[in-house]
């Protein structure tokens, strides 16, 4: 039987993987995937905590996760549009080369 602490540990690890991806990766698409991993860590946490009460699944958590998946999809749609335009301007997906703005 998998207990709640295991699920929590898994979602924390997933969150850390997302942060690691955002910090180290240089490709714009991979950065977007990092964001998706972060959102999925949070979604997973919601679902795993909703089952902490036995024999009852809370509809609140499920509705939040459903809406959150939709929001994540729209964020990635906007991000992909921006990436396409960035590719047209720079001819590359490497964020290291996008350094004309000074921090």
């Amino acid at each position, binding site marked *: 039987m998998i207990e709640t602490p295991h699920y929590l540990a898994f979602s924390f690890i997933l*969150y850390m993987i997302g942060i690691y991806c955002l910090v180290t990766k240089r490709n714009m698409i991979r950065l977007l995937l990092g964001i998706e991993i972060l959102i999925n860590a949070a979604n997973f946490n919601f679902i795993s905590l909703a089952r902490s009460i036995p024999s009852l699944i809370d509809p609140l958590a499920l509705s939040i996760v459903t809406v959150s998946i939709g*929001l994540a999809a729209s964020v990635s749609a906007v991000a992909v549009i*921006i990436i396409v335009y960035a590719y047209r301007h720079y001819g590359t997906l490497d964020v290291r080369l996008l350094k004309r703005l000074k921090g």
Partner: protein
Amino acid sequence: MFSPPIDILLIFAITTPIIGWFAERIKKAHMCGVYSSVGLLISLWYIYELFRKVASNGTQSYPSFFSSQLRIDMLGVFMATIFVLIGIFASVYSLRYLEKDTGVPLFHSLLLLMISGMVGTVFAGDFFTFFVFWEMMCISSYTLVAFRKQRWEPIEAAFKYLIMSSAGSATLLFGMSILYGMCGTLNFQGLTIALSNVGSNVWLYVSAIFILIGLGVKSAIVPLHTWLPDAHSAAPSPISAMLSGVVVETGIYAICRVGFTVLMGIEVQWLEVLAILSLVTMFVGNLTPLLQTDLKRLLAYSSIGHIGYMLAGLATGTVLGLTGTLMHIFNHGIMKGAAFLCAGMILYRLETREMKEMAGIGRKMPVTAAIFALSLFALTGMPPLNGFISELTIIMATVEANMAWLGVAVIINSVISAAYYLRTIKALLQPITKKEVEEAKEGPLVMLIPLLIMAGLIVILGIYPDILINFARSAAIALMGGG
């Protein structure tokens, strides 16, 4: 469905592209801008109606499906008034500002969606509704920053903004999920009751850290501020005014709401953290603009400094401090909005943001330069103007709460900020060297009208601050009194 002001904004946001399509057929492209401004005005009228209801009957709630709900108190009405007011100015200003751009109906539609997202965020009564409207605001602001997609700068700034801000939103969602796991509910009042039984628990600290980081990215608290100068200077000027004047303040609102209702149990600890963050934010936000030569970047950096002042008022944790913070949110929206719109006017005439290249523009555009100087003086905190009143309230609150060191830091920062604001005014008044400046003329009347109204508000709220103080105090009491 979601209270009259948001309904009106959403209906107008959906119908604006249709009106814009017809307007382009009959060669009257600015008609959709007029239409969206009318929508904002109607929404402002409904907010006034709500204000009267809330003032006489107390908190209003609008339950809807999936256990999400809106709970409107005085604080929500206060914030919504600022959002819609600055939104009207930005919308009227964009009528002429965007005349050379394509996709203007979509711009107005996104602007209305962003405003309805912000109004929904402040009306939300639980974390679920809050998060949905929060993301609506974020997504439309990413698109608006990248609006001039034919240039490289907005695209790069928007990508940076998108990655940082959506990582922040995901962190906020993670913090919410831990709170949900502890309490089984996401309603603000339900969380307050449930957490008062739990007491201080290690998971409460973990979720508080996640939520503070998530909100801190959006409100540009210092270690998380790097997206702000890029995004705010690359966006079209009316959007810069919206982002700097109100979108960043939505983050401050969220910290107030979450801090003073949900995290009441560990109040003492997070107020100290906020005090330290406020000090760092203030100094970084006021020392970096000293080196800037780009007008809009300078204004964007100075917004970080003003976020520091707002956090200083928040860190006192008293009604007076919160009143000061809310007043500063209102005044900063108007002052910084006016400053960005004036910078946009210079950009519209000269097509440059470098301060060297606009030397002497004040001689050719006297009205714009006068309003710009007025708003910069107000941002410094000069006595008869509105910035002075709110900064004074914050300083008084810090002294009252035995945190006088924070008040002294606010005073020192006002002095530092005077250095770069005066340098900007000096650039406006220098002798003219460039031919472009010699040929520039005063901006169009449609763009000057919102600026004149804002200048009027800066002076009036400085001389007669009573109405604003009372409004802000009732909002602060509504939050602190748990109501």
